[in-house]
Every structure is written in structure tokens, then in C-alpha cells.
């Protein structure tokens, strides 16, 4: 990729970290932002009038399936799907085959990620080998090899003693530990949120309590060990409430809600007549949970919105509801879903997709002189109709058919246009 001098002209520049929200030009050179507001430089002019120019989005925990699940996704398709969704960085989940649980596996992904022409892929290493929840992996060596976080993916570590030791062990390496709060025993054989809808349509439920017990465990263990924890998918009102209290107590936790959970509820399972694209983990929750999550993101208790990207194909989804693999793709729709969910609140959207997730992995997502030129340009006034083809290999998009606000116009990473018009 060749970085050229770009002049993003006349866009509404939104940078929550610097309290910027005004129309001005942004000049990008040699992969970095060189100036805001000045147009002295020569370069390729990109008309951004009517659009928002903001720091590029970061996603934490996308399942890119590479290696081992290449029919679902690989680094290239995942990276390009991310770029199309406005993401400049994606932290991949270690849920691959084999699992990313050794320094060699981390190093291999890190080196391959240099060749990508879409979003940057950052690597998280598994906490336990094979994600078995029992045997501690070489956490420090993986961090030395370039892992930006440690995670057991979607697997919930049920062995509390080991989890405590893992957090104590991980803390000195300085990277966040990413875990999905849950209780596999209580999740049981549930396939959707337990409530009115599951009772009506005869599907076994996963109670909100399964997640909330997980949240309580993780908060208590973060307080005990001092380890920085990121709760990768929280979806219930009770979780929001606990996280609010934990933050007030100074516990070092951050949390993300999946974007689609801001605009979908368990009614979708019924309305779609058992469409397996609605089978998710965590599941789509009730309306009151949805509203609590929206409020949590708006007031900052929930730091991040995540694409919660789990691309799957007909192999995993064209089966009976209870046998379908849970998950949905999300990189290409997360932005519009967030904007819809937050009622068009641009500042909160940028904060939840750019600033907060970057901060979780120790990066600063800001538009300022000498910052890495990771930018997204989007038009909030245009609606998109969610329909394929997608850049992701997944086919499981539960938002398919919906019309959502906001269109990604251009994504720029390290000063290169990774999505959008290559030439005027």
C-alpha cells in the first residue's frame, strides 16, 4: 500500500478525545495526520462535505476463523469486511483451529497481518491451551510475540480458582484480559433468551442470570487481582447495573455490548419464525434489557459497542434451530446498528466504536497532529439497506432486510484508503 497525501475537505470532524466537533479539513501524509483545519499542502482532495470524519473503529474479539475455519472467514476477508464497516483495527479471537495459544501461533498471525490491505488485524492469545479452561497458556511469551490482549474467546472459564490465578499471572504483562461473562451450567441447553418469547415458542432459554452471575464473578475477580478485565459481550439490564456499581467502586473493568443487541430483541426469533441467524451467544434479550444497554452506552457505563463478528455459513446455519451454531456476522453492519440504536447520537457512536475499544488495548483513537491516520468517513444522512453480497464469507446476518442509518464512505488506515473510492 502506498500512502499518498490526502486532503479530506469540508467534513464534520468528530474527535471526542479532543472535544472537536466542527467542519474542517484534515490532511494526511506519510500515514499520519499532519494537520487539522489547514489546507496548505498539495495532495489528493477528497470531498467530505456532508460527511463525518472520525477516528477509525476498533473491534475486539472478532472470530476471523484463520487458521482452521477458512470456509467461514480468513484474515483477508475479515480484514476487508472490517474496512467496509469503518474498522481500522480488529482484535481477532483466539478461537481458531488450532487455537492461538502459543507464541509461535501469535507471531505467525502478526506477520501475516502486515500483508493485509483492509483493517489491521491485531492478535489476542488464548488464556488456556485449546481454550480448555484448565491449562494456563504461555501468556507472557504470547505478549512478547505481539499479542495485544489475552482472551478465552466466547468460552467462559468456569474454574474460578484457575481463573483467579490466570488473572494474577496475566496482570504483570500489562495487556487486558478479555472474557465473555457467563455460566455454562446455567446456560445449559438454552438456545435463546429465557422469557416470554421462549415460553411461547417452545425453545429452551438462557436466563439473564447466567450472564449476570458471570459478570459478578469477573468483577469480584478483577477487584481481587487488580487485573484489567474487558467483558466482551454484555447484554442484560442486570449486567449494566453491576458494571455501573463496579466502576463507581474503582474496579478496572470495561465492557462491550454487541451492536445488534441495541436494535434487536428476542422477538426477532419469533418474528423470523425460528430463523437460525437469530441464534446468538449471548442471545438477543428482552426489550427492557435492550433499553438498559442503550442507556448504558450513552452514559458511558458500557464503554464499547462490538461487532460481535462470528461469520458462519449454511453448513452451520441451515439446520434445526437448536443445532445451529450460535453467532452472527457484524463487522459490516455494526456502525449502522449502533447509530440506529443510539438514536443518531454521533458522538456516542464514535466514542463506543473508536475511542473506547482502542483505549481497552492501550491505543489512542484521536484526530490530532502526528496521530496515526486511522480514519473513517461516513455519511449519517444516508440510509443503507442491509443485503449481500458481503465482504465477509459469512451468510448469517440477522439484520438482513433492514434499512439502517449511516453509510461508510471511506476508511483510511495508516494513511491509505482501505475502503472507498480509490480514485475520483
Amino acid at each position, binding site marked *: 500500500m502506498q500512502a499518498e497525501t490526502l486532503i479530506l475537505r469540508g467534513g464534520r470532524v468528530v474527535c471526542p478525545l479532543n472535544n472537536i466537533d466542527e467542519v474542517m479539513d484534515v490532511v494526511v501524509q506519510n500515514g499520519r495526520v499532519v494537520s487539522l483545519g489547514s489546507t496548505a499542502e498539495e495532495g489528493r482532495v477528497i470531498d467530505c462535505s456532508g460527511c463525518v470524519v472520525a477516528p477509525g473503529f476498533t473491534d475486539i474479539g472478532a472470530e476471523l476463523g484463520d487458521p482452521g475455519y477458512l470456509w467461514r472467514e480468513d484474515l483477508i476477508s475479515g480484514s476487508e469486511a472490517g474496512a467496509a464497516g469503518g474498522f481500522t483495527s480488529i482484535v481477532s479471537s483466539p478461537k481458531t483451529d488450532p487455537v492461538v495459544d502459543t507464541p509461535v501461533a501469535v507471531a505467525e498471525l502478526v506477520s501475516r497481518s502486515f500483508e493485509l490491505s483492509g483493517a489491521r488485524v491485531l492478535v489476542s492469545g488464548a488464556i488456556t491451551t485449546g481454550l480448555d479452561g484448565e491449562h494456563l497458556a504461555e501468556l507472557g511469551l504470547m505478549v512478547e510475540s505481539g499479542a495485544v490482549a489475552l482472551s478465552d474467546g466466547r468460552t467462559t472459564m468456569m474454574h474460578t480458582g484457575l481463573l483467579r490465578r490466570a488473572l494474577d499471572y496475566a496482570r504483570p504483562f500489562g495487556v487486558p484480559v478479555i472474557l465473555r461473562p457467563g455460566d455454562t451450567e446455567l446456560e445449559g441447553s438454552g438456545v435463546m433468551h429465557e422469557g416470554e418469547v421462549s415460553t*411461547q415458542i417452545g*425453545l429452551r432459554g438462557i436466563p439473564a442470570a447466567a450472564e449476570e452471575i458471570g459478570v459478578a464473578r469477573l468483577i469480584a475477580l478483577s477487584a481481587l487481582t487488580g487485573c484489567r478485565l474487558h467483558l466482551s459481550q454484555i447484554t442484560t439490564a442486570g449486567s449494566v447495573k453491576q458494571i455501573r456499581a463496579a466502576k463507581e467502586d474503582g474496579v478496572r473493568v470495561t465492557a462491550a455490548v454487541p451492536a445488534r443487541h441495541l436494535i434487536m430483541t428476542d422477538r426477532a426469533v419469533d418474528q423470523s419464525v425460528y430463523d437460525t441467524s437469530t441464534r446468538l451467544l449471548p442471545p438477543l434479550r428482552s426489550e427492557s434489557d435492550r433499553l438498559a444497554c442503550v442507556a448504558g452506552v450513552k452514559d458511558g457505563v458500557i464503554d464499547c459497542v462490538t461487532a460481535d463478528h462470528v461469520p458462519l455459513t449454511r453448513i452451520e446455519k441451515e439446520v434445526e434451530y437448536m443445532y445451529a451454531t450460535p453467532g452472527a456476522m457484524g463487522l459490516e453492519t455494526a456502525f449502522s446498528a449502533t447509530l440506529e440504536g443510539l438514536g443518531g447520537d454521533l458522538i456516542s457512536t464514535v466514542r463506543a466504536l473508536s475511542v473506547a475499544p482502542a483505549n481497552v488495548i492501550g491505543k489512542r483513537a484521536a484526530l490530532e497532529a502526528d496521530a496515526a491516520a486511522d480514519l473513517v468517513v461516513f455519511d449519517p444522512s444516508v440510509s443503507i439497506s442491509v443485503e449481500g453480497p458481503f465482504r465477509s464469507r459469512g451468510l448469517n446476518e440477522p439484520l438482513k432486510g433492514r434499512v439502517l442509518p449511516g453509510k461508510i464512505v471511506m476508511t483510511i488506515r495508516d494513511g491509505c484508503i482501505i475502503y472507498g473510492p480509490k480514485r475520483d
Partner: protein
Amino acid sequence: MNRKDLLGLRDVSREEITEILDTAERFRSVSERRIKKVPTLRGRTVVTFFMENSTRTRLSFDLAAKRLSADTLGFSASSSATKKGETLMDTARNIDAMKPDAIIIRHSAAGSPHMLAKAFPWSVLNAGDGINEHPSQALLDMLTMRDHLGSLEGKTIAIVGDVYHSRVARSNIYGLTTMGAKVVVAGPGTMCPPSMAHLGVEVRHTIDEVVADADVIMMLRIQRERLQPGMMSTVNEYSHFYGLDLERLKLARPDVLVMHPGPINRGVEMTPDVADSEQSVILEQVTNGVAVRMALLYLLLGGEQTGGEEDAS
């Protein structure tokens, strides 16, 4: 009735249920003749596709189709290609290639009949999907109740046992409430959780509370083979709190109807003397099952094209 499939009673109207029951009443006489066959569905192909064990329902559907002169073929889990790893959709595509008119499916996964109904042109009849619905059973139950009670409007139906995990109960609850009946359920806390109230029923926890006011007592089978650990303690304790014996039956109105979808665990949910008592209409349910299923096949497959009305009379 203008619908391709019967997937459950949740979205079936009062008028449609009445039409099904009225049609079933007319078909009942066919089974009482010496030659138990009418030509209504001659040349139509009905497939029974049972991915879970069944005796009553499969035989009843098979007999219903045969008495309407349809060609029937059936296959079950043990004989099907799913054992060799074929997906349900692929199996269905193969059945589809043989041009059936209707498929009667039983499957352990809720929503499976709906998946086939969305994807294929033929009629799908749900013969039980997971813990969701078993509409033909509820319809035969309602026909049996109507025979004795006249109308279902304002009647009180008690359902006792593992209501939450019962597709028979769920279909009955939908159908009965649509018909204006009041449904009261009783069972252990694990089997009648408070969320049952979402279905528009009253939840109680002792059988004595529900027996006294009931016009009908429907006892459900304890599906011992499916119970998760902790769902109940012992059969002894279950029978003590939720079993129906003659002593408890005395608390009920003398003309109460005792029903059970079968197969009965004698001595668990009811004592043998209750199962065989005057109030028991369990075998009438089975007889009505054939008539109801004839009516469903006739209404869904459009038997009127061959003059089914006269055939049925």
C-alpha cells in the same frame, strides 16, 4: 380453512379450530363403517417423517391418510439417512424430489416443521416439535372435550404435570384459550415455572387446588427419559403431590373428564383405577385422533376438489 401448513395452534383462529372440529365430527363416521375408506385424497401422497419415537400419533396419522385413500409412506429416525449424517434440509430436498403432497413431521428440535414449511411447497403438519407444539393432539383433546361439554367457552381445564416441557400442553393452552376456556396448570416448580403465566394460564402448585373447579383434568406423562437432573426428586414424591388417585378425584365435580395424552405411567401420574374410571375418556381421545387427523389432511390438502363433503357424509 385457507392455509398450507399446520405448525401449531398459536396462530390458529377460533373459526379455524371450529371448522377443524366440525369437519372431524363428520369424518368420525368413516371409521365406524365396515369399509373404512373414502376416496377423498385418492392419488395424493402423504409422508410421515418421525425423527422421534411415536406409536399413537404415527399410527393415527397413517390410518387417517389411508382412510382418505391417500398413498402413505413413512420413515423414522432409525431408518433414515440422518443417521448417516444427512441434514434435515437435505433429507427434505430428497423427499421433495419425489413430489409429496404433505409431510407429517415429528422432531426433537422446536421449529423444524417451520423450517420445512418455509422452504417447500407441500403441506407440513407438525406432529410434535421439541417442547413447542403438538397441534393435532390438542385438537383431538378439544374435540373430546366438546363432545362432552358442548362448548369450551367459559370452561375450566386443569393441566397437571410437566407443563413447561410439554408440547401437548402448549398446544392445548393456545387452542383452549382461543376457544374461550380458562386453563389452570399445576406441577412442581421446575415444571410449572412462573413464566407459564406468559401463556395466559393460571399457575398453581398443588393438584388439590386445581381439581375442585375443573371441568376437565388433563394429566401429563412424566417423561422420565427426558428429565434433566434436578427436575424432580422421586416418583414417590411426585405422585404424592401431583398424582391423581380416587381420593383426589372425589374432590372434583362428579362429571369431570379425566384425560391423558398417553402413554400412561400407571401409578405415577394416575392410579390404574383412575385411568379406567367412568370419568376417564382416554380411549375416546385416541378414537377422535383419527377423525381430527382426517379433517386436517382434508382441509390442508384441499380435498373439496374431489367432492370431499359428500365423501365424508
